[in-house]
């Protein structure tokens, strides 16, 4: 699997940046850390490969990671930015799912529906189900522990992101819609999150900074509601710890547009979630780098735009 091999190579080349978050079925989940050691500096967290079929998310994270590693050699502006913030990249959270070519992890559990579930919310089936692990969107057994991958991400966020005064998390997904969306909490309910003003301010900043950007900023629950959403859980954990903000965003790449342009790829499971035509694949890899760069700068300079 070329994504995991690329990450293994990157981790071996830069052991000063890479650590193993956890090992699942003897496959490592790599984490790469950049920037200030100070735990009170703001954090940008980038996560990919939560769903094993959505390889493009991991590839976008690797493209970002590669750019960061390369720029560290010559880019003083990046060094200055990283002196004032931390960047954490988890490019592939579900290596077993990706190796097997399936959405869920090795136990058949959808990691994005595996957090402790709120009593309400969850569109039937796709919003999370406990009927069978053979069906997609399986949440895992009721009252069971979280899966190792999900628990490792929760532990990482609790240890390194939640103590920060400000943080943005970007989770890279694909498989829904014709346009690229930036989703914000909640997934379980259409009610406004406590940080709605901050999210709107970030959206306005994106509009002004990158006026020709391609993203539609909307609430996750606008399309359908999800039970056990990992980012809902982490967002609530952040709120319960007191002052400070965590803005968890999900980049949902509009993969239906790729299928519309190349209908035959609808016949393959990977084709429904990833761009298969080489030039389109390259275009997607470069398309989201301005957004990631924008989020890095927005994280560093959060005091300049975050509503009081």
């Amino acid at each position, binding site marked *: 699997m070329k994504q995991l091999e690329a990450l293994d190579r990157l981790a071996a080349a830069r052991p000063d940046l890479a650590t193993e978050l956890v090992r699942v079925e003897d496959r490592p989940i790599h984490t790469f850390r950049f920037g200030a050691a100070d735990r009170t500096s703001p954090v940008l967290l980038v996560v990919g490969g939560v769903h094993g079929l959505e390889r493009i998310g991991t590839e976008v994270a690797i493209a970002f990671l590669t750019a960061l590693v390369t720029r560290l050699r010559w880019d003083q502006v990046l060094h200055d930015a990283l002196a004032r913030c931390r960047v954490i990249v988890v490019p592939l959270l579900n290596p077993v799912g990706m190796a097997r070519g399936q959405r869920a992890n090795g136990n058949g559990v959808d990691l994005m529906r595996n957090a402790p579930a709120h*009593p*309400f*919310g*969850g*569109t*039937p089936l796709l*919003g999370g189900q406990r009927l069978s692990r053979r069906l997609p969107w399986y949440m895992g057994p009721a009252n069971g522990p979280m899966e190792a991958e999900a628990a490792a991400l929760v532990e990482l966020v609790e240890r390194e992101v939640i103590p920060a005064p400000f943080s943005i998390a970007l989770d890279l997904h694909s498989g829904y819609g014709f346009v690229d969306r930036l989703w914000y909490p909640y997934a379980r*309910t*259409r*009610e*406004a999150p406590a940080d709605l003003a901050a999210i709107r301010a970030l959206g306005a900043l994106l509009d002004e900074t990158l006026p020709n950007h391609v993203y539609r900023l909307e609430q996750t*629950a*606008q399309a*359908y*509601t999800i039970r056990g959403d990992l980012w809902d859980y982490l967002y609530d954990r952040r709120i319960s710890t007191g002052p400070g903000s965590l803005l968890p965003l999900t980049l949902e790449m509009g993969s239906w547009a790729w299928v519309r342009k190349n209908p035959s790829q609808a016949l393959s499971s990977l084709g429904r979630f990833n761009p298969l035509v080489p030039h389109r694949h390259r275009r997607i890899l470069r398309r989201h780098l301005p957004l990631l760069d924008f989020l890095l700068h927005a994280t560093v300079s959060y005091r300049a735009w975050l509503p009081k």
Partner: protein
Amino acid sequence: MIAGLAGVAFDARIATREVEGLPGRAAAARWIAANALAVTGRRVWLVGTPPAAPRVFALRAGCLASVIAAIASVPVLIDASLLPRHWRLALRALGLPELECTTAEALVGGASVLSSDELDGSSLSVDALPRGFRVRLGAVRHMLRA
């Protein structure tokens, strides 16, 4: 917006099917009402702290959206028999759980009740704002009829 409300109504059937007990139904009603309001792009600001013990709230609301805002602000079961018929039908279409027992039984069961009768000393008064509703918890004697 109609598609969004249909989505809420769809989710509401699942939410009410899975809950148990009167407090669970009241919490489901709050969730459904809050989601319906959110679909219309309006928010609810609650002024006051909801009492811990179940009680009857007298409702002061001038329109159906205000009724939904009141339900969205605190977990309550509404006594729909006191509402106009078309409001009642709209709430049922949305899938909102209603009071299906007597008020006394609901209170004993642990759920608050929203009624247009002034049975108790508490009230929910709803003011329409440009981007939502302000719901004030207060004593009945302080309220003006809508």
